[in-house]
């Protein structure tokens, strides 16, 4: 199927998201759609997949003009889109997700459908269990599941919106080889929307570059990366210089730390982080690097060993009345024994025993309730101590953990501010957040609800909310979803903090970022710290080997 976009325009208010774009997609080829955040890639693909209509312009399928009023129109015409966060149903089973709106037969064919789905998955090299619930799958597996559904429904042109964000390197390999097979053996058209140059270079046959809503041009691949960079940004971006790191005093010291969860055991971790040092954590997702970061922040307890921030353990403070809930148990047991003794001695009857037990339950329940409340008010959580000592943790889940959906940036500022007074000083908070918004280039106003910001801007907002000065900043995927210029800008801000002595630890799935930004890289595999290497002494290939569990 040959798809042509002619003069596509999409105008939101006075923003020209797409400005007269002409593109042709031929069958059997893999296309890249490249551009920085906000260049209009997603808008264009939403138009092509029927999610929103263009302001003007038309789409031709094999020369025939067509217009879509809803995404299923586009899918019926053979255009399927895989969204960055798949539009599936996390609480349902895989097979239910597959069959939902699949056909119009009244009775679901759950068993036959499962067999078909399994066979279909095997054909594309995916491993999928139809019985599992979607919310227990990884992002990569959910992608595979959606992909199979689109293919089963007869998609001829597949659009993948930033498909490699958040999936493991292995899943990326499987995805890419499937894409190649679909295009080159089954004559389908693939459009990869991305802002990552390496990915486009690796997979695509041709690339189209958008900038500020306009099509800058198309380019056959392979070609020198510098050409693509110039098309994307209008200029070549110099690689930012990494200032030399001089070993200062120790900020964080990890002594023989072990963390056990029922999924993974992280064993015997031992290293030090110095003032102004950047340590990158490499490894497949779930190899233990995330657990270690959380343990350093005091969010999960250590099994053994200790973690010292500026020489003090991150442990929190136990309440001086921690024994109150235990008192409740004791009261109940003592009363129970007493009652039983009285029963045996014949001083009370069975009915009085039953009543006595109920009364004892109520009494000890009340003590327990009051006790736990007092205990929680008088204890200090380990994370709060970490925070008070100048630590900060920026998690990957932007709206799950990092930000509070429904609150504005100003309100976040009030929550994040180091000093709290009883009355909120709104003006001061608004001024402060405005200053930080400008500094970090968040596209949003102080009163914007964080849930309405784009993913990249939520990322920037979390970084804007970091106070100064800090001793240690820990980040999970700090530049995920950001384009090269934004990432450079954020790392530029971090460099400033480094000069002030702040140490950094960060997780990234992007090996280039790890090599470029870290002083040392800690490589994790299956819960073990394989090795800590100097970033200047290693390469992408070596890191790849080590992530696979091999010592170099």
């Amino acid at each position, binding site marked *: 199927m040959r798809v042509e976009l002619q003069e596509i325009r999409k105008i939101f208010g006075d923003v020209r998201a797409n400005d007269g774009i002409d593109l042709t997609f031929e069958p059997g080829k893999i296309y890249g759609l490249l551009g920085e955040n906000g260049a209009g890639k997603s808008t264009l693909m939403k138009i092509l997949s029927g*999610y*929103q209509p263009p302001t003007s312009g038309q789409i031709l399928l094999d020369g025939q003009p067509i217009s879509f009023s*809803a*995404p*299923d*129109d586009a*899918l019926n015409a053979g255009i399927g889109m895989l969204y960055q966060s798949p*539009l*599936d*149903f*996390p*609480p*349902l089973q895989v097979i*239910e997700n597959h*069959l*939902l*709106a*699949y*056909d*119009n*037969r*009244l*009775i*679901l064919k*759950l068993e036959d459908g499962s067999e078909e789905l399994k066979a279909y998955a095997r054909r594309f090299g995916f491993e999928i269990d139809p*019985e*599992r*619930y979607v919310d227990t799958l990884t992002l990569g597996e959910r992608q595979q599941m959606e992909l199979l559904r689109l293919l089963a429904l007869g998609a001829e042109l597949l659009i993948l919106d930033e498909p490699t964000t958040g999936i493991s390197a292995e899943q990326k390999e499987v995805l890419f080889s499937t894409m190649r097979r679909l295009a080159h053996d089954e004559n389908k058209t693939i459009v990869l929307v991305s802002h990552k140059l390496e990915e486009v270079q690796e997979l695509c046959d041709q690339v189209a570059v958008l900038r500020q809503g306009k099509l800058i041009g198309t380019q056959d691949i392979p070609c020198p990366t510098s050409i693509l960079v110039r098309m994307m940004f209008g200029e070549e971006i110099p690689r930012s210089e990494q200032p030399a790191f001089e070993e200062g005093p120790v900020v964080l010291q990890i002594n023989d730390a072990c963390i056990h969860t*029922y999924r993974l055991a992280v064993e015997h971790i031992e290293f030090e982080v110095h003032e102004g040092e950047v340590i990158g954590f490499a490894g497949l997702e779930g190899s233990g690097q995330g657990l270690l970061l959380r343990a350093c922040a005091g969010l999960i307890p250590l099994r053994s060993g200790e973690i010292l921030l500026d020489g003090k353990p991150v442990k929190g403070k136990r309440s001086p009345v921690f024994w109150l809930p235990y008192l409740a148990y004791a009261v109940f047991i003592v009363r129970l024994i007493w009652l039983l003794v009285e029963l045996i001695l014949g001083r009370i009857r069975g*009915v009085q025993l*039953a*009543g006595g037990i*109920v009364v004892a339950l109520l009494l000890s329940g009340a003590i327990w309730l009051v006790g736990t409340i007092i205990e929680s008010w008088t204890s200090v959580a380990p994370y709060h101590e970490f925070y008070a000592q100048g630590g900060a943790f920026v998690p990957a889940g932007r709206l799950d953990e990092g930000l509070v959906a429904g609150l504005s940036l100003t309100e976040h500022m009030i929550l994040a501010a180091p000093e709290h007074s009883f009355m909120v000083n709104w003006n001061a908070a608004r001024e402060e957040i405005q200053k930080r918004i400008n500094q970090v280039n968040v596209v949003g106003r102080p009163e914007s609800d964080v849930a309405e910001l784009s993913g990249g801007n939520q990322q920037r907002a979390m970084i804007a909310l970091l106070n100064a000065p800090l001793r240690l900043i820990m980040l999970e995927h700090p530049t995920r979803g950001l384009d090269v210029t934004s990432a450079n800008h954020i790392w530029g801000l971090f460099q400033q903090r480094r000069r002030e002595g702040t140490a950094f630890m960060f997780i990234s799935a992007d090996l280039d970022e790890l090599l470029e930004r870290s002083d040392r890289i800690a490589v994790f595999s299956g819960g073990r710290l394989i090795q800590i290497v100097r970033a200047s002494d290693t390469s992408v290939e070596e890191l790849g080997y080590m992530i696979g569990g091999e010592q170099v």
Partner: protein
Amino acid sequence: MNDTQLVRMLALIIAQSAPLMLAVTGETITERGGVINLSLDGSMLIAAMGGFVVAYKIDLLLQAAGISGNFFPLMAGFSTAALIGMLVALLIAWGSIRLKQDQVAIGFVLTLLLADVANFLGQDYTRLPGPRVKHLPIPLLSEIPILGPMFFNHDLLIYLTFAIVGIAWFWMFRTQPGLRMRGVGERPESAFARGIGVNRVRYLYTALGGALVGISGAAYSLDIKLGWSDNHILGIGWIALAIVIFGGWRPIRGALGTILYGITKALAQKLQTTFPQVPVVLFNSLQWLLMLGVLLLVGSSGIRRLIDYAPARLQQPLAQALRVAPPQALGTAFVDD
């Protein structure tokens, strides 16, 4: 208590639970589609009142015309009640979908308002004897020992209730439209992307669930309790809402929940007469404590950790059986642009 007494008591519990079962099933259907109808307490009252008044009036008219028999008055009464329940439910859906108002807020206001309206409009009709659904044992099945008297020695409405619970389960988990309905309740934007008219589906199932709630209300004035009186069914709506949660938004578990509720209630009465010296409040709160305990147990992380030790083959079904989660989009409006 001998065997026949026990069976008779269980049969009574089942009969008494049936109207509640109907309301729970109706609300489960509505909530699965993503709309929360919190007005149950009020809409059941007004449906009970409306259904009774219509049945009573028509019965009087027919008797004056010399026609005997309960069929037409009852049909008219239940239809009116279903219509009232449906309209109230649609009001909530409309307020949420078109007026973009909070479903919980509308539901609360309607509960209070409708209860008062029902009292006001029905004050002339309290404690009047009206038509009643006729007892109808199923010929051969009711002869079966134990099971017969428990399940097949009731009236038509109760048999219909059992059927509706079964159909609701089958519809939700075994048919394409039912799957689409669940999809709409879980993630409307995904359902929209697959070509489903989210709000159309929501109107449909809200209306259907509301109709069942209405019939359930009328069952209290025309079936298990004779005649209309405002304090007949005060509070039942809240109980139904609680049992929907207890049943984990599944029809069969919800139905079992209503029977469990009936059993604990009967037990409380029994205990109360056995131990008159213990305060009544304690026994009355027994059923709630029991439910709270079960919910806490099912939702606890301890249980989930226990599942990890179960044989691999059993883990999936066990986890599935213990999954209790509200539809993710419950109570939220869907805006398609």
